[in-house]
């Protein structure tokens, strides 16, 4: 744009620096230009518009000029038009009345000869986000979807999603999703197809919350015809659309292995794409497809290694980091497969420290018999690094490797060499590690304490390191010649030592030392206890007092408390649970991997899938929701329940019992008998000692079943159930669905419900709550009497393995059909027993 000569308008009111007068100035100029037919009016308009946009970018509020901008909008200059559209799109929401003025010219532009103008106008029209203008949107959108120009169709497809956000009903009523779907499967232009898919996914996902039909529609997107149709065209799509299609394919549930291999062969060359996003999306498809085929899954790891490493080296630091995070996830899952690639994870001088940190973790994980020597040698080099946090991490890494190896001989030597480096933080970190190492390998105490004994406690500043040293002094005071004297000098400096952590350790260490070498320590012990008692820190004070009284009570007891025989620690607790890692793996190629936490922990609530997403699972084909006609029956049931006394829900029990209200259908009466007895016990353990009515609560439920003549079909052995379940398993519907598709059927059984249970099952919720109290969670349910269908899941306590159950209940025959799938097939039988007995309890408790 050539700079225009200053106009009369400009010189009349010179622009001023302040934002407000700037806007006023712009307004005035716009007003003068509005009707101008001067030959250079277009240029002037461009110029003023440009200044408006410039203010807008800088964050100055220019919405006051809305009216003037609209007045100036009638122009044939495309550049000016675009600026105007940009402005109007940003401010229309604040000026719904004035926005109406823009409709006219936008609608006219939507019928322009030039497809570019048509497209631009349609895009702006849909971006106004003013609810009362919706009526003007539908017609241009419907014609836009049929436009001869692919550019316009592409914009119309996204426009449909925009309309849905302004007014969902308008979008659905105009049947736009159906048109989008037709277009998606027929349009010759790949970008139109991609945008239709974008729009459909967005509309149906939101719609699914209230409509089962939409949920079914989502399901068809993941069906074989659609996925294969799109995959076959994959090379026509832009890189970004390819990622979209690949993401869709990763949710596809293949029916047999041939389909899996077909897809993998088709996508093989995508792994060689220069765009990292395409490569990662492809890898996700490969990983998810092969979940149930161990051998192939492992081959996939081998195959994707090289492309991932290339991506790490190719892009910007940010891109490398993202890829490295994914690599990190895979390395942590299968360290063995990467053990020969350890050199790829060596830190480079230019790596930022967040990259180095990841690499150190990976090096730690993949260290095994064959490469430990090289890895530890490399790590030792980093210990002298100028980057202190990385140097610390490196030392810790060496320690971790030592803890996970059987042959720690050489590593211990290395660690002890660190102590000779005489750097404060190195010494501190090393002492902490040596302490942990001794807890696991007490046999090394001889070598370690020889070196540790030489360290002057005065040289250690960091509390953690000091505490570790003191711990060792106490623990090995027998073997360390001058331990009592070092401790004594430490006690003398009690006042200079401010860290409560160090003081606590000092108390304990002196106690330990006292029982091992009483005459030498007695004096120090007295001083320590006195100092501790007068300490203002609560914990220090309490511990000192506790030791003091313990000694008063009986020194022998005190010795047993302080110096019990210790067992070597075999495994240190892992920070992140396996289940968490699995969830992150399920969300491969997403931010979860970078944050190292599953998405539910960081996404906005609005965008989070609801927990009980009963409509989302569309394999549910049994009828719709129960409706009002059930309610009367439910009320009737309530009275029955009074006699049956349900106590399945502890929480309700506690809260409702106090006010005695009967808002809930069946929990309320539980306070009539022994709720205290019950609630103290209910979900504490998952063994099936369920609270069973007025009879004894400790009685085994199996015998009770027999007593009532119901019997569990499989008549399990009367041993206590060996399987215990995780009380709070977490599984999202998507994962459930995928697992359900991938896992083979472990068990299929029929069992019966108690007649009371069958009768009380008037809506799915009652059974869901009952099962929940047995730590079996429902992920989806549906149906109408007499048929109900449930999908349950549970997780073995302390393990990652899930059990998935499809349960179809017929209340008329009091029978239930069970289909159980399990990550760990061997436990399926036990779980089935547990599940059935829980089910047979329903209505009795």
């Amino acid at each position, binding site marked *: *744009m050539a700079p225009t000569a200053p106009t009369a308008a400009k010189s009349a009111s010179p622009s001023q620096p302040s934002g407000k007068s700037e806007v006023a100035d712009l307004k005035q100029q716009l007003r003068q230009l509005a009707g101008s037919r001067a030959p250079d009016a277009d240029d002037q308009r461009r110029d003023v518009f*440009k200044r408006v*946009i410039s203010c*807008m*970018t*800088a964050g100055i509020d220019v919405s006051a000029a809305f009216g003037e901008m609209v007045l100036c909008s009638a122009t044939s200059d495309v*550049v000016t038009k*675009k600026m105007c559209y*940009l402005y109007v799109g940003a401010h229309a*929401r604040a000026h719904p009345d004035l926005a109406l003025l823009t409709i006219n010219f936008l609608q006219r532009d939507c019928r322009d000869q030039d497809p*570019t103008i048509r497209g631009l106008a349609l*895009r702006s029209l849909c971006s106004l986000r003013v609810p009362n203008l919706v009526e003007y949107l539908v017609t241009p959108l419907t014609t836009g979807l049929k436009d001869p120009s692919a550019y316009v169709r*592409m*914009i119309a497809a*996204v426009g449909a*999603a925009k309309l849905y956000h302004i007014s969902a009903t308008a979008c659905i009523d105009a049947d736009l999703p159906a048109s989008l779907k037709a277009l998606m499967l027929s349009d010759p232009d790949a*970008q139109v197809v991609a*945008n239709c898919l*974008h729009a459909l996914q*967005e509309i149906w996902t939101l719609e699914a919350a209230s409509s089962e039909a939409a949920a079914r529609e989502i399901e068809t997107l993941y069906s074989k015809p659609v996925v294969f149709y799109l995959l076959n065209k994959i090379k026509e799509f*832009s890189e*970004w659309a390819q*990622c979209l299609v690949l993401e869709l394919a990763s949710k596809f549930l293949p029916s047999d292995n041939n389909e899996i291999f077909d897809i993998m062969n088709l996508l093989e060359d995508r792994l060689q*794409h*220069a*765009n*990292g*996003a395409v*490569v*990662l999306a492809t890898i996700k498809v490969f990983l998810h497809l092969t979940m149930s085929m161990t051998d192939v899954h492992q081959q996939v790891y081998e195959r994707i290694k090289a*492309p991932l*490493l*290339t991506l790490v*080296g*190719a*892009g*910007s630091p*940010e*891109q490398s980091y993202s*890829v490295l995070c994914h690599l990190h996830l895979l390395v942590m899952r299968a360290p063995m497969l990467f053990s020969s690639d350890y*050199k*790829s994870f*060596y830190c*480079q*001088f*230019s*790596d930022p420290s967040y990259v180095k940190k990841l690499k150190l973790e990976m090096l730690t994980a993949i260290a095994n018999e064959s490469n430990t020597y090289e890895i530890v040698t490399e790590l030792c080099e980093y210990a002298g690094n100028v980057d202190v946090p990385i140097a610390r991490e490196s030392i810790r890494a060496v320690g971790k490797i030592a803890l996970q190896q059987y042959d720690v001989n050489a590593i211990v030597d290395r660690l002890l060499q660190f102590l*000779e480096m*005489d750097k404060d933080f190195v010494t501190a970190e090393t002492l902490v590690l040596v302490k942990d190492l001794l807890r696991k390998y007490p046999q090394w105490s001889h070598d370690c304490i020889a070196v540790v004994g030489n360290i002057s406690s005065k040289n250690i500043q960091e509390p953690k390191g000091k505490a570790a040293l003191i711990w060792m002094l106490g623990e090995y005071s027998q073997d360390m010649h001058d331990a009592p004297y070092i401790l004594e000098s430490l006690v003398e400096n009690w006042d200079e030592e401010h860290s409560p952590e160090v003081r606590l350790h000092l108390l304990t260490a002196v106690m330990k030392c006292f029982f091992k070498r009483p005459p030498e320590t007695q004096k120090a012990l007295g001083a320590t206890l006195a100092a501790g008692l007068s300490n203002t820190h609560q914990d220090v004070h309490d511990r000192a007092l506790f030791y003091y009284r313990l000694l008063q009570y009986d020194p022998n007891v005190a010795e047993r408390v302080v110096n019990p025989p210790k067992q070597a620690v075999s495994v240190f607790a892992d920070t992140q649970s396996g289940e968490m890692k699995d969830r992150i793996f399920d969300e491969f*190629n*997403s*931010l*979860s991997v*970078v*944050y190292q936490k599953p998405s539910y922990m960081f*996404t*906005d*609530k*609005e*965008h989070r899938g609801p927990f009980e997403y009963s409509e989302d699972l569309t394999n549910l084909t049994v009828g719709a929701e129960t409706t009002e006609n059930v309610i009367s029956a439910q009320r009737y049931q309530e009275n029955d329940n009074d006699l049956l006394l349900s106590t399945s829900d502890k929480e309700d029990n506690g809260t409702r019992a106090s006010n005695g209200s009967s808002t809930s259908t069946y929990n309320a009466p539980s306070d009539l008998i022994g709720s205290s007895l019950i609630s103290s016990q209910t979900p504490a353990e998952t063994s099936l000692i369920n609270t069973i009515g007025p009879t004894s609560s400790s009685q085994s439920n199996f015998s009770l079943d027999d007593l009532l003549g119901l019997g569990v079909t499989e008549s399990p052995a009367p041993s206590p159930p060996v399987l215990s379940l995780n009380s709070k398993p977490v599984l999202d519907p998507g994962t459930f669905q995928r697992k359900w598709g991938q896992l083979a059927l472990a068990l299929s059984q029929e069992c019966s419900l108690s007649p009371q249970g069958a009768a009380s099952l008037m809506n799915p919720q009652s059974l869901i709550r009952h099962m929940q109290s047995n730590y079996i969670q429902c992920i989806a349910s549906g149906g109408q009497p007499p048929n109900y269908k449930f999908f349950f899941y549970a997780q073995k306590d302390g393990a990652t393995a899930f059990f998935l159950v499809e349960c179809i209940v017929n209340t008329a025959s009091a029978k239930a059909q069970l289909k159980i799938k399990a990550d760990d097939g061997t436990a399926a039988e036990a779980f089935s027993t547990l599940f059935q007995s829980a089910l047979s309890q329903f209505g009795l408790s």
Partner: protein
Amino acid sequence: MISQFFVLSQRGDHIVFRDYRGEVPKGSAEIFFRKVKFWNDDEAEEAPPNVDGVNYIHVKVAGLFFVVTTMVNVSPSLLLELLQRIARVTKDYLGVLNEDSLRKNFILVYELLDEVIDFGYPQTTSTEVLKSYIFNEPIMVDAGRLPPLGPAAMFMQGTKRMPGTAVTKSVVATEPGGKKREEIFVDIIEKISVTFSSSGYILTSEIDGTIQMKSYLSGNPEIRLALNEDLSIGRTGSSSHDYRSSSGSGTVILDDCNFHESVHLDSFDIDRTLTLIPPDGEFAVMNYRMTQEFKPPFRVTALIEEAGPSRAEVLLKIRAEFSVNVTANTITVQMPVPSYTMRASFELEAGAIVGGSEHTLRAKLTFSQESHGNITKEAGPVNMNFTIPMYNASKLQVRYLQIAKKSKTYNPYRWVRYVTQANSYVARL
């Protein structure tokens, strides 16, 4: 689904700001900037910030922050690639990418952004496709007066010392002379990482290379790019290795490589030729990675010795092991010394290093305290940075660059350039 896209200057000013979905609360750019600015103070900070459910993903290009925000759990690689691509497309249009050129052309950038992303969905990033929707003419910024952006700028700015105007030329702008100059640039850029042990052995070595192309050819002719005939890919073990050229000349064995979408590999397996119709603008034809041993351009030996109770001497030798016709420049050598060093005095002939030459640095260190024990653990390692134009360590070559066009008079300029840079060039003490 992208909520917003914005570009911030180093001082945090908005250069462009586009909201696509209107779902992120106001002030996101400020929140982001504050986070990033105070990053270094807090090491524990997670890499891409997430504040109140808003995810901020950014890349830093030419000193500017290119940022997107999103509310959903999307693929980080997708967004990062997209951001890089937006930067690249913008550069194609403006010729030069920096704060000045962006500010002058922000309306054009808005035009681009409108087409690149719609309602948060990436649409197209092809410079060519975008051409028909962009109506602003770029306003050129004089590249000559640009301040240098440090060695990393080389990858965004094209290589120096080449026919200057070409690489900073906009792909779309018509030149004052009227006719566009027909030319094509092929750059083989290699980043090398080498670690020498204290005794001078090579512990690790790796090359990350890319063949970058920038085409100013009209009419999109097909191009054939021939690489070394004996190039082989994949470290599949010696058994499957082809001994066609087993002589000492050295086969180039790449660990892995990937290619741009437009590259046809039909004849790649037979004669190592890439066939492609280059799209307008700058793009990576091929990225590759090599861990095969190669001859490092420099031998670095470093020695530190105690010379008295609170003194030490450093001896640093650098020998350039490449041809005399080649000169390395922008060389820096870094060596951390103990934190209690008070004074260092040294002598060194500075400047460029010519192939075959050897340079020595002697330095005397004076310490404020007596060094305890092992001085080698307190100092180093030595790290070296350099750029060597017209040299590549991998020996990967472009044998020829053929442009298919019928006319005999058609003879566009072809530039094939090599450059090697240090990524991590470390010698341990």
